[in-house]
C-alpha cells in the first residue's frame, strides 16, 4: 500500500490530542523539527503502517501570527493527503472558521464533529448530512472521549481517495468576487504557479495582505496592481479588507448554521455546570485562594513526594557505587565510574521523580481546563514581569527546581513569553541553593537567619522581574501577541492521555538533555582528576589551576581566592556541590565548615559570595534543558553569560558598596 499522510488540525480544546492518541495508539514519537520550538507529533495509524498521522498545533486560524499558526500553515502548504479537522460541535461557530480557511486552501478535508454529546444537549438536532453536502466534505460525528465515531473516521480516511474532490468557493459578494476573478485571470496570464496554492487562494490571500503571498507577488512585480485593488475595495467597505474577509466568513458560517442546526434548547441549567464551577473558581477572592492551594499541592507533590522517591533512587545509586568500588580493581577507574559516570547518571535520574510528577500534574491541570483559568487569575499580577498569567507556573516551580521550571515554560504559547520565562527562571532560588544559603547564613548571620534567607529569595524574584522587563524590551520586543484567552469548559481528562503526554516529555528529556548533562559532568570529573596522581579537585588539579587563574578576577567581589573560585566552578555541576567542594578544600564539614568560614572570611565576603552563587550559572542540568527547550546553544551560552555578568555586578555592588560604608 502506498504511503499516505494525514494531518490532524483543530482549535485548542477540540479534543484533537485525544483523537490523535486513539488513531495512533502509542506509536507517537515527538518529531525533531529543527528551528521551531513548537511541537508537531507524528505517529502511524493503528494497523496501517503506511499511513502516518501528524498532529499539528491547536490553533484558531491560519493567519500566521503565532509560531503555532506558522507551523500549521507551513505544514498544510506541503499538501498532506488528507486533513482531518477536529471540530467541537458544541462550539460550532468559532470552530468552523478554521474549517473554512482549510477549505479555501483547497485541502482535502474530513470534518470530525467531536463532542457531539454536549452539542446534543444544546441543540435539537445537527443535520450532519446537510452540513456534509453544503461543505462538500465527509462529516463524521463523534465523541472521541467515549471512543464513539472512531471507526467511521478511520473508514472515511481509508476510502477518501475514491471520492471526488471538488473545490470549495465561499462567495464574497459582487465587489470582492470581481476583483478575485480579475486577479485570478491576471495570475493565469502571468503563468504564476506556486505549489500548494490554487489561483483563487492566491487572489484571496493577496487581497487579505498575507505576508508570504505579498513577497511572492513582489517578485512578479504585481504588488502595485494588488494594492490598487485593496485600496479601491477598502473605500467601498470603509474598513480594512482583512476584516471584511473575516466578517464575510462569519456571515457564511451564520447562514450555514441556520440551516444545519435546529433551535437551541432552552434548558440551560444542565449545560452550565462549568459556569457554576467558575463562579467559585474564578471569583476574584476565592479564586486566588484556590489557585494558591492548587499551586501549593502541585509544589508539595512534585517536590516532597518526588524527593521521597528520589531518596530510594539515591540509595540504589549508592549501592551500585559501593559495588563498583568493591569489584573494580583500578582506583582511577573506580573514580571515573563513581564520580564521573554515576555522578552524571545520578544527576539525571534524581531529577526524574520530580519531572514525572510535575508533568503529570501540569498535563492534568491543562487537560481539565484549569491552566487557562490560572493564567486568567494571575494575568494582572504577572504583568509586573511583563509576562502573561501562565508564566506564573514555571516561576513558582523554579523555587523547587529550575529544570522542571524551564520545561513548564512550554505551556506558554507565545515565543517571546516562553523565551523570557526560560531565561529568567534560573534567577529564582531553587532548593539546591538552600544548602549554600544555610552554610553562609549560619557562618555570618547567626542572629538574622530568617531575615537574610528571606531577602536572598526576594532578591532572586526582583532580579527576575527586572531581567524579564529588559529581555522583553530588547530581545523579544514587539513579538507579544494580544492576550485573547479562551476559558474552555471543564472536561474530565482520560488518565491515559495524561500518561502518554507525560511519557513523551520524559522520553524527550532523557534522550536530549541527558547526554549533554552526562558529557558535562564527565568533563568536570576529568578536570578535577588530571593531572594523574593529584588529589581530586585539589589546587594542583586542572580545576584548581583554573580556579587559581580566575581568582584575581573575583578580587573586586571580595573573594579572589582559589578556594572560592574552585567552589564556584564545581558548583556548575549542581549548586549544592559548592558546599561539598568548600568542605573538601577546607577539610571540614557541617559545623566545622561553618567555623572555618566564619574565621577565615569576613561577613561582607561571605555575603558577596552567597549572592554570587545564588545568581551565577544555574547548573548543568538547567543548561542542558535550556538548550533542549530553545533548540539552540546560543541561548544556553547566553544564559551562562548573562547570569555570570549579573551575579558579578550584584556582588560587586554589595562588596564595594559595603566596603565604602565601612562594613
Amino acid at each position: 500500500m502506498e504511503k499516505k499522510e494525514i494531518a490532524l488540525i483543530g482549535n485548542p480544546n477540540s479534543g484533537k490530542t485525544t483523537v490523535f492518541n486513539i488513531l495512533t495508539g502509542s506509536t507517537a514519537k515527538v518529531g525533531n523539527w529543527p528551528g521551531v520550538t513548537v511541537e508537531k507529533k507524528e505517529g502511524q495509524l493503528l494497523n496501517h503502517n503506511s499511513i502516518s498521522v501528524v498532529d499539528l498545533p491547536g490553533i484558531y486560524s491560519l493567519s500566521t501570527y503565532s509560531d503555532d499558526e506558522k507551523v500549521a500553515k507551513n505544514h498544510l502548504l506541503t499538501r498532506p493527503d488528507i486533513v482531518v479537522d477536529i471540530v467541537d460541535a458544541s462550539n460550532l461557530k468559532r470552530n468552523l472558521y478554521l474549517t473554512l480557511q482549510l477549505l479555501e486552501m483547497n485541502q482535502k478535508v474530513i470534518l470530525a464533529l467531536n463532542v457531539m454529546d454536549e452539542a446534543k444537549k444544546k441543540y435539537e438536532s445537527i443535520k450532519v448530512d446537510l452540513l456534509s453536502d453544503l461543505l462538500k466534505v465527509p462529516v463524521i460525528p463523534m465523541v472521541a472521549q467515549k471512543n464513539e465515531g472512531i471507526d467511521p473516521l478511520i473508514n472515511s480516511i481509508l476510502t477518501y481517495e475514491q471520492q471526488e474532490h471538488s473545490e470549495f468557493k465561499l462567495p464574497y459578494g459582487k465587489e470582492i468576487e470581481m476583483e478575485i476573478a480579475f486577479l485570478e485571470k491576471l495570475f493565469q496570464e502571468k503563468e504564476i504557479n506556486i505549489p500548494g496554492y490554487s489561483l483563487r487562494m492566491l487572489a484571496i490571500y493577496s487581497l487579505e495582505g498575507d505576508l508570504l503571498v505579498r513577497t511572492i507577488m513582489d517578485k512578479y512585480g504585481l504588488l502595485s496592481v494588488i494594492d490598487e485593488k485593496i485600496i479601491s475595495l477598502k473605500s467601498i467597505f470603509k474598513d480594512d479588507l482583512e476584516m471584511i474577509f473575516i466578517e464575510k466568513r462569519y456571515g457564511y458560517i451564520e447562514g450555514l448554521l441556520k440551516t444545519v442546526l435546529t433551535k437551541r434548547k432552552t434548558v440551560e441549567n444542565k449545560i452550565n455546570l462549568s459556569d457554576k464551577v467558575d463562579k467559585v473558581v474564578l471569583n476574584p477572592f476565592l479564586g486566588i485562594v484556590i489557585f494558591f492551594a492548587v499551586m501549593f499541592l502541585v509544589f508539595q507533590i512534585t517536590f516532597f513526594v518526588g524527593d521521597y522517591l528520589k531518596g530510594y533512587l539515591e540509595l540504589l545509586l549508592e549501592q551500585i557505587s559501593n559495588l563498583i568500588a568493591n569489584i573494580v580493581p583500578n582506583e582511577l577507574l573506580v573514580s571515573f565510574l563513581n564520580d564521573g559516570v554515576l555522578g552524571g547518571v545520578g544527576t539525571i535520574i534524581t531529577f526524574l521523580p520530580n519531572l514525572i510528577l510535575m508533568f503529570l500534574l501540569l498535563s492534568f491541570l491543562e487537560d481539565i481546563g484549569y491552566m487557562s483559568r490560572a493564567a486568567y487569575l494571575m494575568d494582572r499580577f504577572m504583568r509586573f514581569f511583563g509576562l502573561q498569567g501562565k508564566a506564573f507556573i514555571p516561576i513558582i516551580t523554579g523555587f523547587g527546581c529550575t529544570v522542571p521550571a524551564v520545561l513548564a515554560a512550554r505551556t506558554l504559547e507565545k515565543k517571546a513569553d516562553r523565551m523570557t520565562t526560560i531565561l529568567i527562571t534560573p534567577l529564582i532560588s531553587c532548593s539546591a541553593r538552600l544548602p549554600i544559603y544555610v552554610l553562609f547564613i549560619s557562618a555570618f548571620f547567626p542572629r538574622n537567619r530568617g531575615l537574610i534567607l528571606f531577602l536572598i529569595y526576594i532578591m532572586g524574584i526582583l532580579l527576575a522581574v527586572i531581567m524579564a522587563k529588559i529581555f522583553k524590551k530588547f530581545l523579544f520586543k514587539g513579538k507579544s501577541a494580544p492576550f485573547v484567552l479562551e476559558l474552555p469548559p471543564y472536561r474530565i481528562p482520560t488518565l491515559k492521555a495524561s500518561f502518554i503526554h507525560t511519557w513523551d516529555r520524559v522520553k524527550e528529556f532523557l534522550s536530549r538533555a541527558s547526554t549533554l548533562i552526562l558529557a558535562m559532568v564527565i568533563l568536570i570529573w576529568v578536570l578535577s582528576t588530571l593531572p594523574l596522581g593529584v588529589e581530586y579537585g585539589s589546587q594542583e588539579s586542572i580545576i584548581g589551576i583554573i580556579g587559581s587563574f580566575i581568582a584575581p578576577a573575583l578580587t573586586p567581589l571580595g573573594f579572589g581566592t582559589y578556594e572560592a573560585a574552585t567552589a564556584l566552578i564545581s558548583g556548575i555541576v549542581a549548586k549544592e556541590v559548592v558546599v561539598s567542594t568548600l568542605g573538601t578544600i577546607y577539610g571540614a564539614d557541617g559545623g566545622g565548615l561553618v567555623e572555618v568560614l566564619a574565621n577565615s572570611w569576613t561577613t561582607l565576603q561571605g555575603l558577596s559570595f552567597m549572592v554570587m552563587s545564588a545568581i551565577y550559572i544555574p547548573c548543568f542540568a538547567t543548561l542542558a534543558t535550556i538548550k533542549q527547550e530553545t533548540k539552540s546553544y546560543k541561548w544556553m551560552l547566553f544564559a551562562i553569560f548573562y547570569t555570570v555578568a549579573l551575579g558579578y555586578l550584584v556582588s560587586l555592588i554589595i562588596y564595594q558598596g559595603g566596603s565604602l560604608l565601612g562594613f
Partner: protein
Amino acid sequence: MEKLNVKNQDILETIYQLEKENGKARLTDIAASLGFSKSRTNQEIRKLVDLGLVREDKYGPIVLTKMGLFEAERVVFTHLLIMTFLQRHLGLDNETAEKDACSIEHVISEETIKAIVRHLEESHDNIGDFNLKEAEEYLVKKKRLSELKVGQKAQILKIDGPKGIKKRLMEFGVIKGEIIELVGTAPFGDPLNFSLNDFHLSLRVKDADNIIVELQE
C-alpha cells in the same frame, strides 16, 4: 481605560466640531478655538494619539479614530442634553447655559443623565437637532466593552484599535452584531471574562477598551 480628563474631552469636542464645520481639523484651528498655544495643543494631542483616540497624518489634518469619535460624541451629546435642560426647564439664558454645560458635561454621572432624559421625555422635549431616543442611545446604551458591569449583555457595534489585535479578536468571533456578556473579572478588575456565542473569552481591559457595544435590555 483611565477616565478622560477635562482637557482631553475639550480637545475631542473641538476636533469634532471643526470636522463638522470645516470638514477637517487643523492644529492651528484647534489651538485658536481653545485659546491654547500651538505647542501646548500639540502636546495635548500627543496624549490623545497615545490613547488611540486621534490619528495625525504627517502634515495632514488631525482625525478622530472610531474610539475618538465615540468619546467626542459622548461629550457633545451630554453638552446638548444639559444645555437643553438648563434653557427650557430652568429658564436660563443661552450664554449661562452654554457656560455651565461646558463645566457640568465633564463630571455628570450616568444616573443624572438618565434622570434628565426621563424628565425631558415626560415633557416631550428634544435636544437640539437630535431626538431623545438617539441621545439615550449615545449616553446610556453605547459603551466601551470594558465599561460593562458584571452580568450585563451587549451587542457589538464597532471594533477599533491596532490592526493585529483587531484581526485576532475578529477571528475569535468578536464581530459586529454578536451578543457578548461580561461574566466576571479577575482580581484587580483585569482581565475580563466574557461569554460569547458558545464559549468564554478572556480579554484585558486595554483591549476591551477598543470595542464599542450597545447595552441590551
